[in-house]
C-alpha cells in the first residue's frame, strides 16, 4: 500500500545513481517497446484531431496526411450546433455540487472518526467503508424509481448529491487515514485556549488536510465529470444534460458527418486534457492511490 506514497521520494534519489551497465541491444529493445506503446496512445488522438480538421472527402482518400486546408469551421459548427458549451456548463454545475457535498460530508465524518472515541465508532467506520464495494449500478434502478416518484428527474443538484454520496466511502477512507497522522498537540493547545471543536476542525484540521482533500476532490471530479449511466437515466431534458450524455446525443445527431463528429469529440476531451495538464502529478498520484485503496 505504501508503494505509491514513497514513489516520488525514491525518484529523486534514483535519478543520478541509477547508471548501471545495460547492454545496448536491450536498451534499444526497451526504447522500442516504450515508443510503440506511446504511438498506440498518441496515434488515435492525433488521428482524431487531424480528422476533425479535414473535409468529409479528404477523410477517405487522404487518411494519413495533414489536411490540405485546416477546416476550423468544423469546430465552429460542432460547438454551436452541438450545444457542447451548454453540456459543459451542466457538467461543471453537477460536478461542483458533487465536490462540495462529498468534501463537506467526508471531512466531517473523517474528523469525528479520527479524533473522537465513541461507542459506535468501529461499526460506523465499517458501515461507511463497506460502501466502497457497492457499485452505483446496483442502486441505479431504485434511484431512478425514487427520482421519478419525487419529481426529481432532470435535477442536476439531485444528480450531484447522488455522485457525492457514492464518493463518501472512499473519501472517508482516504481522509481518515490522513487525519489520523496529523499530530494532536496543536489541537490540545487550542482546547486549553478554549477553542470549540467546530473551530478546531475549521482552522486546524481542514488546512492541515489540504493534500487529502485535494486528492478526494480530484477523484470525485473525474468520476462525476465522466459518469454516464446515472446521468443518462436522470437527465432527459436537453437543457440539463451533462457532457457525456450530450456527446452521446451529438454522435447520434451527426452520425454521418464524420468530421464534425471528430471535432465534437476533440472539444469534449479538451476539459479533461486541460485538467490533466494543470494537475498532472496530483492526478496520477491520486488515481493510483484511489485504485490501490478502492
Amino acid at each position, binding site marked *: 500500500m505504501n*508503494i505509491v506514497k514513497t*514513489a516520488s521520494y525514491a*525518484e529523486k534519489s*534514483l*535519478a543520478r545513481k*541509477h547508471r*548501471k*551497465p545495460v547492454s545496448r541491444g536491450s*536498451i534499444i529493445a*526497451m*526504447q522500442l*517497446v*516504450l515508443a510503440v*506503446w506511446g504511438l498506440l*496512445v498518441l496515434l*488515435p488522438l492525433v*488521428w482524431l484531431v487531424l*480528422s476533425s480538421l479535414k473535409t468529409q472527402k479528404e*477523410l477517405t482518400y487522404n487518411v494519413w496526411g495533414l489536411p490540405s486546408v485546416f477546416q476550423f469551421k468544423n469546430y465552429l459548427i460542432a460547438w454551436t450546433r452541438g450545444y457542447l458549451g451548454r453540456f459543459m456548463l451542466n457538467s461543471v454545475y453537477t460536478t461542483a455540487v458533487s465536490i462540495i*457535498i462529498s468534501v463537506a460530508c467526508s471531512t*466531517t*465524518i473523517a474528523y*469525528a472518526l479520527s479524533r*473522537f472515541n*465513541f461507542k459506535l465508532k468501529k461499526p*460506523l467506520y465499517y458501515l461507511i467503508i463497506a*460502501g466502497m*464495494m457497492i*457499485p452505483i*449500478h*446496483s*442502486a441505479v*434502478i*431504485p*434511484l431512478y*424509481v425514487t427520482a421519478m416518484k419525487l419529481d426529481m428527474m432532470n435535477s442536476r443538484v439531485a444528480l450531484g*448529491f*447522488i455522485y457525492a*454520496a457514492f464518493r*463518501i466511502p472512499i473519501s*472517508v477512507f482516504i481522509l481518515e487515514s490522513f487525519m489520523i497522522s496529523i499530530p494532536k498537540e496543536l489541537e*490540545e493547545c487550542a*482546547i486549553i485556549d478554549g477553542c470549540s*471543536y*467546530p473551530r478546531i476542525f475549521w482552522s486546524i484540521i481542514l488546512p492541515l488536510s489540504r493534500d487529502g482533500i485535494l486528492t478526494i476532490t480530484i477523484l470525485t471530479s473525474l468520476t462525476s465529470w465522466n*459518469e*454516464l449511466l446515472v446521468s443518462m437515466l436522470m437527465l432527459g431534458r436537453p437543457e440539463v444534460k451533462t457532457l*457525456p450524455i450530450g456527446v452521446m446525443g451529438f*454522435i447520434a445527431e451527426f452520425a454521418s458527418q464524420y468530421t464534425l*463528429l*471528430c471535432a465534437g*469529440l476533440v472539444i*469534449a*476531451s479538451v476539459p*479533461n*486534457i486541460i485538467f*490533466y495538464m494543470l494537475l*498532472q502529478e496530483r492526478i496520477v498520484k491520486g488515481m493510483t492511490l484511489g*485504485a*490501490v485503496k478502492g
Partner: protein
Amino acid sequence: MKSGIAKGRGRVIALFIIPGLLVYAILVLYPLIQGFALSTERWVTVVKRNPVGLDNYRRLFNNSLFWNSLKVTLQFMVGTTFLQVVVGFFLGYFLYKQMKGYRFYKTLYFIPVVLMTVAVGFIWNNILSPSFGLLKPFMNAIGLGELYFPPLADPKLSLLTLILTEAWRVVGIQVMMFYAGFMNMPQDVLEMATIDGASGIKLIWHMVIPLVWDIAKMVIILQLTGSLRAFDLVYVMTKGGPNHATELLPMHMFVHAFENFNIGIGSAVAVCIFILSMFFTVLLRVLMKRESLQ
C-alpha cells in the same frame, strides 16, 4: 482536559457525523435495500405492482442470457486483468530504467485514464469504423486489406476489442503502480542482482515476483469489481451486441430494466451485481490476508 468538555462531546460528534451519514444512508444504503424489495415485484404498470416473491430470480436463472452475461463478464475480467498486469509490468519496468524520454512517456501513458470513457469509446469506434476509420487503410497498407472486417460486428472479435480498448484506457494506472513498485525496491540489491548473473536471477526472482504478485493482486481485486461496473464503454461501443456477445452484467441489467422496462428482473440483476461485488471483494481480501500472514 477531558472532564470539562465531555458533556458537549456527544453533541459535537453527532454534529459532525449525522449530515454526512444521512446523505450516505439516503442515497446509497436505502436504494440498496429498496433494490432488494424491487426485485421481488413485478410491475404491471407504473402504479400497479404485484409481489411475486423470488419469481424474478427463478426466471432470471432459467434464462440462458443471464448465464451468457455472467460468462462474458468473467471473460472480460480475466482478459483485462491479464493485459493490465502484463503491459503494466513491462512498461513500468522500462520506465523505471529512466532512459531518454521516460518522463514524456509517463505523461503520455496516463492520458487515456483521464479521458471521458464515452469519448474513448467513440474514438475507437471511429478508428475501427469501416466507413472512415484508421484500421482499414492500415490493414491495406500492410497488405492484409482483404482480411479486414469491422471487428465490432463480429461476436468473437467484439469482446476482444472491448477488452483491448478497456486495457488501452486504464493501463496507465498499472504502469504507474509497477513503476512506483520498482522505484521502491532497494537499489543495491537490484544492482547486485544485475552484476553477478546466477545468484542475480535468484535475487530478482525473490524481489520481482513478490512485487508483481502484490500489484497483480490489486489489479485482480480492482478488475473483479471493476468488471461489474463496466457499463459506459460497453454502452458506447456495442450496446451489448452483436447477439449479446458483449453484454456484461451492468448492460444486462440495463437491457432488462430500461429497454424491456422489466424493473423487477432488472433489479434482480442489480442484486446479483451487488452480491458478486461483495463476494469477490471479501473472498479476495480473506484469501490474500491469509497469504500475507504466512
